[in-house]
């Protein structure tokens, strides 16, 4: 089989690959990479936009009547808006009762944030990551920053910044773990985790807490850099076994990971 030749070729190829990685890491390949990214990311963005339209799960493709379709879309919008408004209302009530006086809705915060358009997503099916293009992102966007939609719905965190490209790991990624809280009487806390089956779960809910379907899930503020009160979704189903110390719940997200187009990255919450 020519073992010697095989190992020689394999070693040479490995060395070449290591050289490319090292050259990239020290920035020696930037003069090639920059123009390529600028040109090709436009094409990627165009294809992503088509994909967003095709994968928009808010539109049921089996419906035929135009009026029915439009009514359904507007109802979905109203529903999301209502949930967001209700979450804001509940939070304000709780804060008032405790004399804390903090407002929770994103638009009323004086946070520093950057807004940008999603230009693509990670191609590996094992990951759920979207990409945003920002000039000088490396200097302005810290890792771990929370990312929200235009309505203030929490969708993920920044996990990598590669020059001008920001990678945002979404909630349904298998490695996402974010402190979450329920807006119920007990203010239950837990951990919102992504699953490879494209679902979001809230785990580590104490067994004695009362959780009901429809409860609103928000960020708990216990994860560094992520403030309290960003809406995540609603509880869809509860899984409770008497012999286990914790119960868990399936969360229905407010923002579909397949239809994200414009996102804001909160980089500074110190003014809150």
């Amino acid at each position, binding site marked *: *089989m*020519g073992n010697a030749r*095989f190992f020689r*070729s*394999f070693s040479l*190829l*490995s060395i070449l*690959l290591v050289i*490319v*990685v090292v050259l*990239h*890491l020290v920035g020696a390949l930037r003069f090639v*990479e920059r123009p*390529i*990214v600028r040109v*090709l*990311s436009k*094409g*990627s963005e165009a*294809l*992503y936009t*088509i*994909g967003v339209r*095709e*994968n928009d799960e808010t539109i049921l493709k089996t419906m035929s009547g135009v009026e029915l379709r439009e009514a359904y879309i507007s109802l979905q919008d109203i529903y999301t808006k209502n949930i967001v408004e209700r979450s804001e209302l509940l939070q304000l009530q709780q804060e008032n009762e405790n004399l804390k006086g903090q407002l929770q809705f994103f638009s009323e915060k004086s946070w520093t944030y950057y807004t940008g358009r999603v230009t*693509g*997503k*990670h*191609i*590996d*099916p*094992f*990951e759920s990551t979207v*990409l945003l293009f920002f000039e000088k992102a490396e200097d302005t966007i810290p890792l771990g920053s929370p990312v929200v939609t235009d309505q203030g719905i929490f969708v993920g965190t920044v*996990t*990598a910044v*590669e020059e001008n*490209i920001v*990678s945002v790991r979404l909630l349904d*990624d*298998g*490695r996402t773990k974010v402190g979450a809280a329920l807006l119920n009487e007990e203010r239950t806390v837990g951990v919102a985790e992504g699953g*490879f*089956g*494209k679902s979001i779960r809230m785990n580590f809910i104490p067994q004695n807490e009362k959780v009901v379907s429809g409860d609103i899930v928000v960020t708990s503020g216990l994860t560094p850099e992520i403030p309290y009160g960003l809406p995540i979704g609603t509880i869809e189903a509860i899984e409770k076994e008497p012999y286990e110390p914790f119960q868990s719940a399936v969360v229905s997200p407010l923002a579909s990971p397949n239809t994200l187009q414009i996102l804001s990255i909160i980089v500074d919450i110190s003014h809150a």
Partner: protein
Amino acid sequence: MKSLLHMLQLCLFVIILLVIQFCVSYIFPFPLSAVHVPTSIVVVYLMVKEQRRIVWYMFSFLFLLEILVPSNFYGSMLIPGVLSTFLVYWFHRFFFTNQSLYTGMILGASMLVCYRFFALVYDLFFSIGIKNTDPQYPAFSFSLFGIEVLATELVILLLLFVLLKRKA
């Protein structure tokens, strides 16, 4: 002149591969979006053309993909992709040499296993060895891997069925 033509051919091929990859990942619904495009291309190319050039095609394609769709650790697509292409090329040259559907299926499965193995090792090396702040295990799920293998094998089967029939 010949080398210039080869360069043009390489550029065109790589751009077509990029468009295919983005179409599959962005537009196709799950589980079709789980098809591993590099594996499908490599197997089909090897079965039809049988040229070593595919390793360099994959190098260029994955280099572009790596800068357009950055992963957490640079090289986590490039290194596993190129090395597994190289291994599959050698498998095809010395072990699974005939041009048949089942050879294509075996090569596809081999490449996917090699790719995921190299990717896991590379990610583990980076997350534990180098980036020791907030170490994280690489993303992996057996059920998703199963779906990826099935979807990719199905595409390979369909493509080879058509192409080998035409070639014969």
